């Protein structure tokens, strides 16, 4: 399997009064045309990993890596011109909350057209493509949504519109940062179904970032479990029950279950060694 994304020893550090704080500390993985899950609690560095890959680390943050290649292109120190060619066209990111990530004063249609237009595409073609994408994410009335403003849509619709926007450039790599955490469970599954089809039909690589270990294990092929900026365990999703790292096991066990009684719930006993 040829990897479209190779990450070796990725580190992200932010300055602080006590000197630089490393929030991602040596993350390495390779991604093929598959679904890779990155799971961890808040502050584990999972979102920072995703943002660093797309060059979206906040100002002040310092990203270093031994290797950060996307389809043979070295992303370390890539020029703004190269980033413009990549972002939105070959790699995109779906953010957590459509309420904060869509432009509130632009219609959905204009935003998708803007994302999908590149040199030589006529306005009419771009609109047709946008409507096609809205249909692809299972929006029943694409015409209405095209002319709607973000506040006129529900959370699930907004999230689908954002996925349509990210996919209109037909990227090879999609980084989805908690794409369904703000959605209801039933809508959540529909959105996952859409992402699943896209990975299968288009051979897209997907990095799925989430705090929900159980959801990720049912959706992804492979899971990286992050703790304190490091990957503590990499495991095939199907083997999650056989996870060996105490943190992974702890995360799994502390969830309440419908079909089993555990009282009190096992809590996570953190070990200082995990962060080392």
């Amino acid at each position, binding site marked *: 399997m040829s990897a479209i994304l190779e990450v070796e020893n990725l580190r992200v550090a932010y300055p602080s009064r006590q000197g630089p704080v490393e929030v991602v500390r040596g993350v390495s993985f390779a991604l093929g045309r598959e679904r890779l899950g990155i799971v961890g*609690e*808040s502050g584990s560095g999972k979102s920072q990993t995703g943002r660093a890959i797309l060059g979206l680390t906040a100002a002040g943050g310092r990203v270093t890596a031994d290797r950060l290649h996307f389809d043979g292109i070295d992303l370390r120190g890539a020029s703004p011109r190269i980033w413009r060619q990549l972002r939105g066209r070959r790699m995109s990111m779906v953010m957590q909350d459509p309420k904060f990530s869509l432009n509130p004063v632009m219609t959905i249609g204009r935003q998708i057209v803007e994302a999908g237009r590149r040199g030589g595409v006529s306005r009419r073609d771009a609109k047709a493509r946008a409507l096609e994408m809205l249909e692809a994410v299972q929006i029943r009335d694409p015409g209405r949504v095209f002319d709607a403003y973000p506040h006129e849509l529900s*959370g699930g619709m907004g999230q689908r519109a954002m996925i349509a926007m990210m996919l209109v450039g037909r990227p090879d790599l999609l980084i989805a940062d908690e794409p369904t955490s703000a959605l*209801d*469970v*039933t*809508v*959540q*599954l*529909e959105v*996952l*179904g859409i992402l*699943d089809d896209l990975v299968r039909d288009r051979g897209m690589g997907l990095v799925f970032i989430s*705090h*929900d*270990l*159980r*959801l990720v*294990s*049912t*959706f992804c092929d492979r899971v990286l479990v992050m703790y304190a900026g490091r990957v503590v365990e990499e495991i095939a999703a199907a083997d999650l029950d056989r996870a060996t790292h105490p943190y992974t096991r*702890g*995360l799994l066990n*502390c*969830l*309440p*279950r*419908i*079909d089993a009684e555990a*009282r*009190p*719930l*096992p*809590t*996570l006993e953190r070990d200082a060694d995990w962060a080392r």
Partner: protein
Amino acid sequence: MSALLSVDDLSVTFGHGADAVQAVRGIAFAVAEGESFGIVGESGSGKSTVLRAICGLAPVSGGRIALDGAAIPAPRRADFYRRVQMVFQDPYASLHPRHTIDRVLSEPLAIHGFGARGARVEAALEDVGLGHGFRFRYPHQLSGGQRQRVAIARALILEPKILLLDEPTSALDASIQAEVLNLLDRLRAERGLTYVLVSHDLAVVAHMCERLAVMQNGRVVEELTRDALRGHAAEQDYTRTLLRASEGFRKDGAT
């Protein structure tokens, strides 16, 4: 079963005339003393509005809410809040950012004329597993789980009988959620509290509550016991959909 808290044909309407939105459309349930009752539903189903209506924070347009068999007067009187307290969803929004924990916990004591406030504040912090070292901190110096513990301490400091819990753990990480759920479980056992817990997470409700109601579009579509839920004995399609959805994604695309 004599109900401690009963809700009968409750309706809540926001707005007037053509803009009126009926958030809750005639729901009924009863909770016995010492029981833990859950309400599940998706966003917009009206589940939080029910709790807010009980607390007097939502415009009730019809029906009856009774405590110990007696209708609760509106507006609520001070003695109501001695018996019923609420814990809100977001511990980042429900604590005053410029009040110390000590002030947050002392305020209800002052309002209700309790004595020995210092000792009560210390005891309340101890009860929720926070040491007295937290007493003079500000909310921004606390993690999300610690803040939610403070919110629970604030609700319990008046020694109420009923706690209304509105998504008490949905803003927290899974491991912290387990700690807070265990804390709520222990406090209920120790003090014989009655809970009404609202959540979108079926697993949380199944863990915490003996009985639950499933809400959709402002109505209760089904009321069932925890055992029935575990036995997958749900009768309504919507409940079954929620049950299936809570098991995670399936590759065959069945949602």
